[in-house]
């Protein structure tokens, strides 16, 4: 087992304007690309909350053709593995985008954004979308799931059966915040996706549940901001962590988190973070939640 890899979370870094940051990662994940170009949502597009933020970017992206033509070539020059995040509104959307990417040598991995609130009912059809993508590409496939579900392990098993190679856990969860003056939603599109430290315990519970349910590689994310956080995700079963919101305040976070994680591991008597993987579950009595 290798040490915990450090990636960015999709939509939280543009490697073309911040190549130095991208190069400090073990892999760069693109913003979600859809079949057609999208302008995204009207501003305001983000708002800060007590221990997190809400965003309603709305999948602004150049569409798969523009992406492959204009973005992929310079990304390929970076020298880090490129993961392409793929979104869509139907199984055929996913299949067509994946088929296109299957031909691109520069693409190391495809991450399926199955949890974009724009795609109504996505969690219910996650397995179908994953199945369609699997049929269209032989690249490694990661399924990115939403925490907004009663039983994420069930979804994990379904996408595992559909043939994905890994899980990206988790996407944002819907949230709302009002403008203090107007009492109107602070975002142009009212409701947005909640990320940052407040999401961390929810994300960690999802990693924990999925690590018990399926035998897939897990990229953990949701509020990771320090080596200690990366350690927790590793202990809960993740093989990699992705940095999202923390990159907005600290573009040097990848190197910092990596260094802190190494120190934490050694201080605790483990040679490398890899030895910590899944340790939270050792002697675990029960994975069933019992709160009310």
């Amino acid at each position, binding site marked *: 087992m290798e040490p915990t890899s450090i990636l960015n979370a999709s939509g939280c870094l543009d490697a073309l304007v911040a190549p130095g940051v991208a190069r400090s990662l073990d892999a760069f994940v693109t*913003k979600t690309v859809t079949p057609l170009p999208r302008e995204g949502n009207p501003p305001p597009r*983000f708002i800060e909350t007590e221990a997190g933020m809400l965003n309603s970017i709305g999948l602004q992206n150049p569409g798969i053709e523009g992406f492959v033509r204009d973005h992929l070539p310079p990304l390929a020059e970076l020298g880090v593995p490129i993961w392409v995040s793929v979104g869509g509104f139907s199984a055929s959307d996913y299949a067509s985008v994946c088929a296109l990417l299957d031909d691109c040598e520069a693409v190391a991995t495809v991450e399926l954004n199955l949890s974009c609130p724009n795609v109504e009912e996505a969690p219910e059809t996650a397995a179908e979308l994953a199945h369609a993508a699997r049929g269209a590409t032989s690249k490694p496939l990661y399924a990115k799931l939403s925490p907004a579900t009663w039983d994420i392990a069930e979804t994990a098993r379904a996408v595992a059966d559909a043939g994905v190679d890994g899980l990206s856990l988790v996407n944002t969860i819907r949230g709302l915040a009002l403008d203090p003056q107007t009492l109107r939603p602070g975002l142009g599109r009212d409701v947005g996706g909640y990320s940052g430290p407040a999401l961390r315990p929810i994300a960690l519970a999802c990693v924990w549940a999925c690590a018990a349910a399926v035998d897939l590689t897990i990229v953990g994310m949701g509020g990771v901001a320090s080596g200690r956080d990366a350690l927790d995700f590793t202990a809960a079963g993740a093989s990699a962590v992705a940095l999202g919101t923390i990159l907005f305040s600290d*573009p040097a976070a990848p190197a910092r988190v990596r260094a802190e994680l190494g120190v934490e591991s050694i201080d605790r008597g483990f040679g490398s973070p890899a030895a910590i993987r899944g340790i939270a579950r050792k002697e675990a009595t029960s994975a069933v939640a019992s709160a009310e």
Partner: protein
Amino acid sequence: MASDDLSLGGAGVRRERLAAVSSERVGPYTLLRLERGGLDPGIPGQFFMLEAPGRLLPRPMSLCLAPPGELAFLIDPIGAGTRALCDLAVADAIHVLGPLGNGFDLSVTRPLLVGGGIGIAPLPYLSEALGGPPSLLGFRTERHAEAASLLPGAEVVVEPRLVTELLPEDPGDVLACGPEPMLEAIRNRAPGAQLASEAPMACGYGACYGCVVEIDGRYERLCVAGPVLSDSAGKD
């Protein structure tokens, strides 16, 4: 590591923890002087992301003055983040990232600086770079107008008078920063003006797509395309 060149677009962008050297009130605003560390002051109109103690996200601030060894910011305490910055005590240290974005194009022949309210912030540094060109400043109240002391020799008006009333027939090369209605008025009166715009920014370096403004009918990131936009690239 944290102080390394981060290769964010332009070269020379760094992030360091800088201590406050002084903090003084200027009317309702606060002039916060930080030690400069290894940061480059950049081009007037560029901005820095300042850690706001207790907040998740940093706040964008134009560089106001660049005395030797220092970076100085003029801050309007309008919310939790700016209040936390105005409350910094001497020796308190915060993370600062920059310089970011596109500054003013200084190759102008007949510069005229125009500022409104806290939009005066980037003008002292800009004025210095341009050798003290004429400037027009507008403020909401006499108290706000105290900030005009940062730009000696400027013409100053206070509401109900508007700064755009002072614009000459042929204003020359206008470089302006201020509230959107002021910028809109300048667009009409001085086509081709360089206008420093504002939008809430989460990252300041193109990572989040949170700061978009409409430019030629498309959503562009202001932190990458701006904050200084030349009028032809402006909203209309």
